[in-house]
């Protein structure tokens, strides 16, 4: 399996599980499984994306889809209705997957994802408040969602902080906060004007129905920036998984790193929630599925992003097809898939104790 070779003066550890990519005298080690996962997920995204562009009240032929994509045979339905939805599935799925991986790293618990600890619900509260009380437009709603997510994160953090921070304690308190915030959301919807309430309920369980390009510009930029920022800190994030002591003694600025992780995690969650509502369970399941597929240590970001994108894209197709011609909110499907997964996870966690 391994051999210590002499290459000039330097012993190089050759491994079968990694590929060594030389970069100007230095090297970059990539896990073979990660490369496989990237290829697999890209193929899946293209395949699902193609189905997503074809599927609707009437199926488009492959020729029509290619025609619309290349602009040779313009189609409003494909280019303006279906394409944004496909892109939203990939973009939001990746954002949710990364948000989940960030919080699972922070809490060192596979259940510590933003949807479980109430951050989706909190972001939704922020959005609802802006819509109902301040009758705000979409950008204001997004700010409301971010503020709601941050307030909820601060609440969960302060309630679970006593004698240091334990991941499990934070998760349990987060579940309670999630329940309370969800109740608050229902109350807000009930109290709201009928029209606002109708809009809010359709959005209540997370939906990509009716998303167009205009809805995606700002979230797309925000998510791209957030993913780049956290991507550059990915190695520090992985280093923190060795425990606080080793993280600090190997040079991770832990306090700053944690603050950045909370901001990026809440930012991703709130951005998605502001546009699509609280899409549950992608953030919970994607990082763990990605981790197993990549056979990577800890909870890495890239597999979480890829798996999240494929998962949400797939769930959205199912949501469109299940009761066609009625298109279900995608959150209903992710909740159904993720709920089963959560039960399994809880059983595992209880068994481990």
């Amino acid at each position, binding site marked *: *399996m391994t051999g210590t070779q002499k290459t000039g003066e330097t012993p190089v550890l050759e491994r079968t599980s990694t590929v060594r990519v030389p970069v100007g005298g230095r090297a970059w080690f990539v896990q073979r499984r990660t490369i496989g996962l990237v290829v697999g997920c890209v193929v899946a995204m293209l395949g699902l994306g193609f189905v997503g562009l074809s599927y609707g009240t009437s199926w488009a032929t492959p020729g029509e889809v290619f025609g619309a994509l290349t602009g040779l045979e313009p189609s409003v339905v494909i280019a303006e209705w279906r394409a944004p939805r496909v892109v939203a599935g990939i973009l939001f799925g990746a954002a949710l997957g990364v948000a989940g991986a960030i919080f699972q790293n922070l809490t060192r618990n596979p259940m510590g994802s933003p949807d479980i600890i109430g951050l989706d619900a909190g972001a939704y509260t922020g959005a609802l408040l802006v819509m109902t009380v301040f009758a705000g437009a979409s950008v204001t709603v997004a700010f409301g969602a971010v503020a709601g997510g941050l307030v909820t994160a601060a609440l969960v953090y302060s309630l679970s902080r006593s004698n240091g921070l334990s991941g499990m304690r934070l998760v349990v308190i987060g579940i309670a906060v999630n329940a309370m915030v969800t109740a608050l959301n229902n109350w807000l919807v009930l109290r709201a004007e009928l029209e606002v309430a109708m809009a809010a309920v359709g959005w209540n369980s997370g939906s990509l129905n009716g998303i167009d390009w205009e809805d995606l510009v700002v979230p797309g930029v925000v998510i791209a920036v957030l993913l780049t920022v956290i991507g550059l800190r990915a190695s520090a994030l992985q280093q923190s998984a060795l425990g606080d002591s080793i993280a600090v003694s190997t040079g991770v600025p832990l306090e700053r790193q944690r603050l950045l992780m909370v901001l990026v995690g809440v930012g991703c969650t709130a951005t998605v929630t502001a546009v699509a509502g609280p899409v549950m369970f992608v953030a919970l399941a994607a990082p763990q599925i990605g981790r197993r597929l990549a056979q990577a240590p800890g909870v890495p970001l890239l597999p979480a992003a890829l798996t999240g994108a494929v998962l949400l894209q797939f769930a959205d197709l199912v949501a469109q097809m299940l009761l066609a011609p009625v298109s279900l909110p995608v959150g209903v499907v992710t909740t159904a898939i993720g709920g089963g997964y959560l039960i399994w996870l809880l059983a595992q966690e209880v068994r481990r104790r």
Partner: protein
Amino acid sequence: MTTRLSAQDVTLGYGDRVVSTRLSLDVPDGAFTAVVGPNGCGKSTLLRALVRLLKPAEGAITLDSRSVSDLPAKGLARELAFLPQDPLAPEGITVHQLVSRGRYPHQSLLALWTPEDERAVAEAMVTAEVEDLADRPVAELSGGQRQRVWVAMVLAQDTPYLLLDEPTSFLDITHQYRLLALLSRLRDEGRTVIAVLHDINQACRFADHLVAMKDGRVAAEGAAADVVDAALIKDVFDLPSVIVADPVSGTPMVVPE
């Protein structure tokens, strides 16, 4: 005796609970320093302060006369490596991947590997005798193997200083001695080793410099032969004992009455 790393009049504690008041210690360069003392005497707290895991309420920890809190995080991590009592191995990590994490303070943002990084990891695994385990998941290893893997990780950090908090706890007697012999070898190669040890007799045998602590202060320090006597053991551990010469190494050996 030269010294680069010192604690100068530090007051250490957690919140309102003060553990040490005005404690001073010079760590001799290139020596094996063992810190001993009863449970809760502040040994681990002192070690944590030396690696900046705990900020002194008063006084300063200095390296080359500069306060460690003024040094950049990765810069300090290239000087001092620390093995805590409770390191976490991420789920699914292999030995080689874990040892590689020791290179973090030497790497830039993009985690590109230099030949120097690869050499340090390979050497650390050979020194700690874990090269045959390279592709094994850490979770599958025995306690003794796992502790050697963690030692390899801090070795890969390639620092002049190695600080270890009770590295021999939970190891059987064979692995305890293997680990202490390894630390002595590292000292012979020029590193400065500071370890909190539970077993006073092991500390006497392996350490060049013994620091005995009680109630957050240094009760005695120096070569074991010079400082360990029945009076010190009575004072520090509250244990009546007879001191004999270790039949193997000739160092003081504490035999409780």
